[in-house]
């Protein structure tokens, strides 16, 4: 509780943040992860086997990539519910070329990135220039994309892909999953940009106080649209990795990724109202989720337990990490 400031309303006496909040919020999630890993590896030694860890991380990589993009949008004060739809549409585009020749890979990438750009620009435009709530704007694009996608596929599955995709999505390079390498590289680039570049600082400024950002001369509309565009492009790329991993695209592709990406980021300390957090925390959130899923399977618990545990962890992690951040009262 800080010293009161003249002219201001008193903050509620009874509402104080968790006493251990400060320490927990810095190391809580990491500590939780480590503790979790220890417990699981004791109960099921299979957990720490390199093969298992590699598998776990391969499965997690597409979500991790999406989360990178979602973090940018969250930081700037928005949300992007369309990432799952973009992933799926990108996957459809990949199989839609019906090509097996690896020379088509750059073309497919270009097409996917183009898709991401278009959707991202539309989202960003609606939010920044037309003042639509991000929730609704991205919900609307999700639905529109969904319709377009179903129209094209008519519900059937596609599985024609150049062989490079299998390598991308599920292959290994010196034992390390390729998509994980991609994730790490992307995370390093974007994390670095956010923390050390001027552009990154501008994103935090806009997320903190849009009006204030305008008044210090920042091109807020461009920055916001840029974040949405970046998020969709990253989601499109994630979709390519996903379809590479699964080998085909169907109506379930990407399902749940939008909410999972938001949840993982928030667990990792990215404030849902914007202006706080970074990609490393968000990725930590992904790892926690994924380790937990894996633990459930290894321990032989029914799949339903996975869901329940996920819910509990999401709420608990958000409470600890963000104690006091949702300043409703």
């Amino acid at each position, binding site marked *: 509780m800080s010293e009161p400031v003249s002219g201001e*309303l*008193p*903050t*509620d006496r009874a*509402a104080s*943040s968790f006493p251990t909040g400060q320490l927990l919020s810095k190391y809580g999630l990491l500590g939780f992860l480590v503790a979790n890993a220890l417990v699981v590896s004791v109960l099921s030694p299979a957990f720490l086997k390199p093969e298992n860890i590699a598998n776990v991380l391969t499965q997690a990589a597409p979500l991790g990539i999406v989360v990178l993009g979602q973090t940018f949008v969250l930081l700037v004060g928005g949300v992007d519910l369309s990432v799952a739809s973009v992933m799926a549409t990108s996957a459809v585009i990949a199989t839609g070329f019906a090509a097996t020749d690896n020379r088509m890979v750059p073309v497919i990438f270009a097409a996917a990135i183009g898709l991401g750009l278009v959707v991202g620009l539309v989202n960003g435009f*609606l939010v920044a220039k*037309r*003042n*639509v*709530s991000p*929730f*609704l*704007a991205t*919900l*609307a*694009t*999700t*639905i*529109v994309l*969904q*319709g*377009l996608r*179903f*129209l094209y596929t008519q519900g059937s599955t596609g599985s024609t892909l150049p062989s490079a995709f299998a390598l991308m999505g599920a292959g290994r390079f010196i034992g390390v999953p390729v998509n994980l390498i991609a994730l790490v590289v992307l995370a390093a680039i974007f994390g670095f940009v956010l923390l050390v570049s001027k552009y990154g600082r501008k994103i935090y400024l806009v997320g903190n106080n849009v009006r204030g950002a305008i008044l210090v001369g920042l091109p807020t509309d461009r920055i916001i649209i840029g974040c949405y565009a970046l998020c969709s492009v990253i989601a499109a790329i994630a979709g390519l990795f996903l379809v590479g991993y699964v080998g085909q695209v169907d109506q379930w592709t990407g399902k749940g990724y939008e*909410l999972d990406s*938001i*949840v993982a980021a*928030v667990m990792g300390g990215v404030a*849902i*109202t914007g202006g706080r957090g970074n990609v490393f925390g968000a990725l930590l959130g992904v790892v926690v989720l994924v380790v937990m899923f894996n633990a459930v399977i290894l321990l032989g618990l*029914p*799949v*339903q*337990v*996975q*869901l*329940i*545990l*996920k*819910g*509990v*962890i*999401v*709420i608990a992690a*958000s*409470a600890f990490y*963000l*104690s*006091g*951040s*949702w*300043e*409703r*009262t």
Partner: protein
Amino acid sequence: MSAVTSDPPRTAARQAIRQMPVSLLVVLGLIVLLLAIGVIASPRFASLNNFRNIFQQSAALGFVSLGQTIVVLTGGIDLSVGAMISLTSNFTSGWIDGDPNMVVPVVVGVIALGAAIGCVNGALSHYLRVHPLIVTLGMAAILQGCTLLYSLAPVGKVTDDFEAFAYGRIFGLSYGGLAMLALFALVGVFLHRTRTGNAIYVVGGDARGARLLGISVAWTMMLAYAMSGACAALTAVYLVSRMGSGDPWRGDGFDLASITPVVVGGTALSGGRGGPLGTLLGVYLISLLNNILNFMDVSTFYQWIVQGLIIITAVAIHVEKGRRA
């Protein structure tokens, strides 16, 4: 701009219309537009029977959207309604399992369960200070997991006259549709004419201010989410009545579907503004839309696109300069 002399006497009706927000008039306008399109689209559209069907079918979306409205008015959101519908529909048919004596206790019990879980949502959100978006998402996972633990496939059955809720009619209007209307009216009165109901608007307007004025934000939140949970359970009961059995995936998609009528009807996601009347119109608007698209033989795929465009349009109209929907 600041000082206005006391207003001349007006009739109650004129004052009511004058105070009706623009957003409601817009939705009404859209409904009229759709009616016109429907008449052009197909001769069978403008039949009494068709309208009765629309009235009946709107009940499912109606109940859950009503609950969502209350939550959104407090400035929050309830993304657990889908899982709640799945859970309660599963329990309903599972617990009744063809025994007519169980019908009433189970229905009451299931609605109470919805309220209780909703209450937990509100409490977690308030006391743990976690955004309701996250809390209800987490709860949705928990509920879905529990549902699947109970059964992975549709289980149990309901009695034959359970259908009455969905299919039974009085004066040609379905019980379900009438019940929905009645509930909307009841909630509307509750929100406007009782202190507890009004507190929902107050908390949605400025929770900190509400607290300072002695209004318990905690209780208000818990009440709002409890009502949302109960409404979701009602939707589940209705759907069980319509389909004849429960289904652990019944609620899939209802989270976002329940928000559409709320937003289209002019209730702001930021809280403190709007109400059930707008949502009711929004529900009818969407039901009307689906009905017309069916008549036009438009494939389900296009329907998605059109829904998305409707959201954007309605939102764009609601938004004033510099204000968010």
